[in-house]
């Protein structure tokens, strides 16, 4: 989806402004948004890709003027309603209605340390050999899907070199649309600054992306 989240190469945001001695959180509400986001995700009703899509689907002006935890909160409200856990009325009033969707699981306090430590690995057993090998020249495809994708605009239709075959990983474009999980080979692809940005590129820099196999064609 070509939206405000796809920021690589955009301009006029001004310099990067680091905050000296930045705290981990800037208020209790940020802590709660993080925690609700992690715990609600653990119900197992949506994938990481689906909630990323919900964040990316916010209107661009809202996306760019929100803090990251505000973006998380807005997307969380959206998926909770879409999946029938809460209604818009409940969110508006803060009053729980009797209707309720039974979650697949609820993360218990004593399970948190173990679940976070194990994480949710994204590598899957490959059903076919990798199409590309380290050193291969490839070109990324040009596409402008309405749905979630992890091929940024600045890296579409560009020629690069496979540096590393990462493994066979869950394919986000399909998962974000609620399709059954599929996996594809994932590669680290390196581009020169000049290939990406033409004469405005830094001649002594390179940029890599992690690209799923269907994003790539032989060059």
């Amino acid at each position: 989806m070509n939206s405000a989240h796809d920021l690589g190469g955009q301009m006029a945001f001004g310099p990067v402004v680091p905050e000296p001695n930045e705290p981990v959180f800037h208020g209790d509400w940020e802590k709660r948004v993080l925690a609700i986001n992690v715990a609600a995700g653990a119900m197992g009703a949506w994938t990481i890709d689906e909630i990323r899509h919900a964040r990316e689907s916010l209107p661009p002006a809202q996306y760019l003027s929100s803090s990251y935890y505000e973006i998380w909160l807005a997307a969380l409200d959206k998926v909770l309603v879409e999946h029938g856990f809460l209604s818009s009325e409940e969110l508006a009033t803060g009053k729980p209605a009797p209707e309720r969707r039974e979650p697949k699981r609820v993360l218990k306090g004593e399970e948190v340390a173990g679940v976070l430590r194990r994480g949710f690995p994204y590598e899957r057993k490959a059903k076919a050999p990798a199409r590309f090998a380290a050193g291969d020249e490839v070109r990324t495809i040009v596409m402008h899907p309405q749905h979630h994708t992890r091929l940024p605009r600045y890296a579409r239709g560009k020629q690069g070199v496979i540096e590393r075959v990462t493994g066979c990983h869950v394919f986000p474009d399909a998962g974000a649309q609620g399709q059954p999980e599929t996996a594809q080979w994932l590669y680290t692809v390196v581009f020169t600054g000049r290939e990406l940005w033409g004469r405005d590129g830094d001649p002594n820099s390179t940029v890599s992306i992690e690209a799923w196999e269907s994003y790539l064609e032989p060059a």
Partner: protein
Amino acid sequence: MSGHHHDHDHHHDNHYTAIEARVKALETLMVEKGYVDPAALDAIVDTYETKIGPRDGARVVARAWTDPAYAERLKADATAAVAELGYGGRGGEHIVACFNTPEEHNLIVCTLCSCYPWPVLGLPPVWYKSPAYRAKAVIDPRGTLADFGVTLPENQRIRVWDSTAETRFIVIPMRPAGTEGWSEDKLATIVNRNAMIGTGLASVEDAA
């Protein structure tokens, strides 16, 4: 002046700001409907506030600086190598270590969202998630470093890693001169968070 009055446009009569009230309402709904366990929320906050942070990544770097065999394992399979020190999991299921050299400096970004190696660096700072950083790092890496007061030799290449998948990256900065004979613990004190993202360098001036 007694005639002064406040023109409030918010109608709630409690002390919460609008966003605080929204979050409070959502948490109440989630708990009352049995979707989340309040103890789990507290444990998650505690984990990222007090247990996981850049000092973990700093231990990985200090080990790599003092143990060449560990550095080799970190290069070959960083996920396994950080697990040796007890780190790993959510937001860092697949980790790659990017070693700085005199020829090449590494810089990590996520242009599409805010992917970051949580198990070794904790939660990302606001600037890492900001549009300014996500926009600029890939097109103007030297200008981005200048925003952090970092100037590299012109002949040192910059390699930018855009975290577009669940592979998460940690930069292994170069060990500064003048640290010969330092213990692993002392070395860990000079590895700051930005050095492990690539917007900073390890410096003896940071020594504890």
